[in-house]
């Protein structure tokens, strides 16, 4: 499958050094993300419910940053902080079930203010519904990934299916159907589909959210990451194209799309035990390999980077 979009020779050339480099620099990348989250006070030391809700808000803003004209991860964090802090005490989850408070908080942000009516109501609804879910569930349920996914599934099927408005449901009906058709035992898939049922959540947001909770904040200790999907972030695609892992037509894809599956297959082929390791490329994309100001000399991928090799040639 991998070889459909990229040359077989290039993948074989890349596989070994890329694996080694990523494994070597993964702690650095994790620290980078953890620091970014900690900059607005989201660490594993916070109350569980607070971490769960605010990580979702960050994941949403992070994955929509290109569409919403938020340029870097620092701006993502500051925008999220503006929203969260204007609602009130970030550990008081019940405040986030108040639509009016959320609406006024959006008015105090820089970029979210410019969202159109549909996006704004989807964002408000998602935060509100997720806060309702967290209010309904005790801390114990959230400590175990399996229990979390089952609790989220039950909430989505029993409550969210009634709460969500008709217009949003038209887009989400297929995910509710898929969720029903999925066996409870497949925890990651269940959690992913349950998240997709929330109005504004798409595949990238669901994957990023679960990645941040499991790997960066380490909410669920001793979790098996084999099932996890690597979030398909535009920064990873950019770096992947530059180093020659993907071809130039490769773009972020919708859920279940052909390219999404290829991306996941590549991640699994490189790191069968933990496909999310490929997310380390996001760190490269945020620090050295930005769209306009490239710092190739500082980048640890320069030795295998096709872009660097051709540019110096």
């Amino acid at each position: 499958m991998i070889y459909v979009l990229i040359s077989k020779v290039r993948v074989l050339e890349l596989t070994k050094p890329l694996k080694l480099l990523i494994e070597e620099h993964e702690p650095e990348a994790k620290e980078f993300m953890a620091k970014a989250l900690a900059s607005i006070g989201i660490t594993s030391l916070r109350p569980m419910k607070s971490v769960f809700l605010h990580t979702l808000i960050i994941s949403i803003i992070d994955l929509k940053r290109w569409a919403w004209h938020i340029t870097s991860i620092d701006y993502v964090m500051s925008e999220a902080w503006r929203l969260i802090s204007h609602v009130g005490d970030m550990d008081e989850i019940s405040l986030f079930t108040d639509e009016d408070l959320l609406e006024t908080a959006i008015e105090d942000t820089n970029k979210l203010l410019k969202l159109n009516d549909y996006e704004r109501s989807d964002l408000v609804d998602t935060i509100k519904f997720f806060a309702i879910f967290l209010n309904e569930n005790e801390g114990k349920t959230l400590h175990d990934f399996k229990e979390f996914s089952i609790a989220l599934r039950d909430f989505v099927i029993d409550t969210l299916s009634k709460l969500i408005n008709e217009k949003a449901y038209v887009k989400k009906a297929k995910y509710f159907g898929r969720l029903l058709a999925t066996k409870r035992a497949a925890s990651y898939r269940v959690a992913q589909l349950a998240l997709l049922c929330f109005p504004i959540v798409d595949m990238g947001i669901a994957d990023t959210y679960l990645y941040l909770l499991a790997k960066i904040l380490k909410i669920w200790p001793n979790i098996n990451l084999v099932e996890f999907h690597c979030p398909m972030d535009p920064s990873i695609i950019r770096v992947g194209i530059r180093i020659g892992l993907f071809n130039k037509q490769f773009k972020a894809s919708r859920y279940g799309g052909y390219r999404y599956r290829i991306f996941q297959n590549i991640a699994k082929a490189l790191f069968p035990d933990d496909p999310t390791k490929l997310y380390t490329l996001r760190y490269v994309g945020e620090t050295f390999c930005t769209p306009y100001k490239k710092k190739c000399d500082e980048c640890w991928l320069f030795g295998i980077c096709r872009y660097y090799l051709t540019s110096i040639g």
Partner: protein
Amino acid sequence: MRVKVKESSKSILEAIRLAVRRLLIRGHPYHKLALYIIGRTKFIPDGVQLFIRRLRSNTLDVGTFTLSRILFVLSNAGYSEVRRILSDMHKLQLENGLWTDYNVDLDFFKLLNDKGIALRVTLDVLMSTSKLDVPIDDRLEHAINALLRTCSPDGTWRRTFTRSKTWDVEITSKAILTLNDYVDELIRIRALDLISKWLNSCIITRSCDQPWALGWAIRVLYENNLLNEKQLNEAISMLIGLQSNSGYWGVFEENLELTFDNLMNLLAIGKYEKSLRDEISHIIDVKTRIIFMINELFPDMINYLKEDLTNIARGSIMHKANLFQNAFIWAVERSLFRKQDPKPLLELFSHYIGEYKPKTLYDHAYTLARYVLDEVAEISNRHVALGWLLRYFKLSLWRSSPLLVIEKAIAALPNSNQKLCDTYIFALNVALNIPKEYLHKIPCPVDRNLIEILRKLGLITTPITIAIKNYNKVRDEVQALAKELFPDSPFKLYALSMIPIRWCRGPTPCVKPSREGYNLCPFHDLCPYFKGESIGAN
């Protein structure tokens, strides 16, 4: 002296004919009412009468945009009762003098910003008032001033699109047509010059950046004598080229409002009233005959189907077959593709009947939904239907709309299809006594026989090549027709499927010899496929 459109041009007549048919079949009740009035006929089917009653009693629960369209469409036909809408529109007028709607989900309106929508809605209202000869009062003057304030110095209206700063040809053309007396002469000349240049560039390049504006641009230039014969004919042929094979105009999807506008623009340019009336009267003849014949055919069909259901019950291998199961078997036999194996579906349903033993309609709706959600969901590949079923079940809709829940539950069965849902609900109606309040919700099953006769009579405009790929397109057309003719019981139209079975097949199609002489198909004089002339049966 105005230039004339080529008289020999058959394509314009064909375009008008197709558009009229499309509007009289798929159109909203106000489109149909307008065309019936234009056709000078007294025929008004029950579905349209229902709309008129709602219009008179002010119970139309529609937004500003739809209200403005009703006003515009009916004022074009000279329907004076529409004046009462004007008083409603006054209540909806904004402080700045414009009207707007934030919930317009239609075709190219996705490209417009709030200003673009507001200007269009306001122009529709002003155009209708001029058609109805309503004197300009303060409110209307306020609206006119608001429109003129938004005009650019070059005589155009711009910044109405979300992603483009180009000037809006449609609004400019409509405004010049409507506000002729209010616009400054210099501005008017500039605007007409720009519209003329735009149309010429469209004709030369054979492409159009605002295809929805073409009809209005041609009309405004034609009415101001700014087109020569060649330009006019080329522009009209371009407009006709944009029409779909099914008869509608639309950019991203079918747009009935644009279809009506373009039809009116074509009628304003040439003298086609006679052919328009001929087409309308032909369709009215067909519809009148259908309404008349259904009363005769429907009881026959019900007896025929009841016999069928009884035969299924007798021949059933399943033990303790009941009404629901017979209806399902009957529906499956008529709905699945030839290559599809009906066994898995029948086994699932049989398992459900054995386990839940439903007795009433409500019981059936509740238990079937539970069975599908609890036991079938994991093997189903119909995820969208499953999602909707979940919502309806959680909202306890099985109490208030059991048929809707049953429909979604059947649709959520593995390898199910829309035809199976429609046919099963119809079969339930034949087998059970469904309460009267739900009869208007029973859809008309659309099968091969019904499609055959409706297509012969010209009541299906979707070409076969498209219909084969998308069953729902033909289904929507038939449902719209059924709801217009029989709003209280749309499924009655299915009785028409008896016609092809009785008349269109066999060694003597259209004619059946009998001891007294011969019988002719009741639709023979309206059917272009009549084959009786060869034996002198005409």
